């Protein structure tokens, strides 16, 4: 079981083409006490991979539909890398159809959160995924 202090030291990468959504998620994480000061942002999958190759990241929160490299394309790259695929990825998307969830889980996604979401739901899915990883 993760302790509160372990959650507080997390380094989280937020991947979304919407600056507003990235700010919203950042605010939820900070208000939840998760990863204060250790939140990185990327506007698409390509930027996210660049961050993952250069900085320590414990958890990725990613949208799917993004111009440039999509969340699905990013997951293909992560799944093919022995180094990167150990990092848990949670999808935060408006599309949670069974087909979409199944295809993303097949790529190694650890959790799924549908927009809109209550702030507590984000913390809950993060906690659930990290406990499963521990």
């Amino acid at each position, binding site marked *: 079981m993760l302790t509160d202090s372990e959650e507080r030291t997390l380094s989280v990468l937020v991947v979304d083409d919407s600056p507003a959504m990235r*700010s919203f998620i950042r605010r939820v994480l900070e208000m939840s006490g998760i990863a204060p000061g250790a939140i990185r942002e990327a506007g698409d999958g390509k930027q996210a991979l660049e961050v993952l190759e250069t900085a320590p990241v414990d958890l990725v929160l990613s949208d799917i539909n993004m111009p440039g490299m999509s969340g699905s394309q990013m997951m293909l790259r992560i799944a093919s890398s022995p180094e990167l695929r150990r990092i848990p990825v949670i999808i935060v998307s408006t599309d949670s159809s069974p087909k979409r969830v199944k295809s993303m889980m097949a790529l190694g996604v650890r959790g799924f959160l549908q927009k809109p979401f209550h702030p507590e739901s984000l913390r809950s899915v993060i906690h659930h995924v990290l406990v499963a990883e521990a």
Partner: protein
Amino acid sequence: MSTFRDELHQLCAAAVPDVLETMFFVNAVEDSAPPPPDPLVVDVGFRGSRSGVFTIRLSAGVARDLASGFLGVAVEQVTTGQAIETACELANMLCGGVLSRSETECGFDLEAPVAATEPYSPLTPVVYRTQFLLDNGGWLELEFRVTGGIREAA
């Protein structure tokens, strides 16, 4: 027999208050209202079992109010850019909120929201248009235009 328009009416009635209350902390009720002058307009292209364009219209003041709640910034500190970005994300979530209730099996794809320059597009017939009044006194209009091209989303 239920039509696509009837379906959209039911889907919007469920999705719009859900999105606004959950992530923007604003209550909304479906109602008619005169359109605001010079509205901010955002288009989102969608592809699923049906393809088309979803559009929202709202006043600049409403966009600022929504951005304030969404970003946790005092309304007087919200920049024009933040108001537009938030309106784009609102359009994305509203369109996704409706389609996720409709495209329950095969999913859908959304294009990046775009702030439009023309308040009303003459290009494609409107399938469904509705308006919501917000409890902050604001007004929001939504519309769906279907361009056809039925295909299965990736």
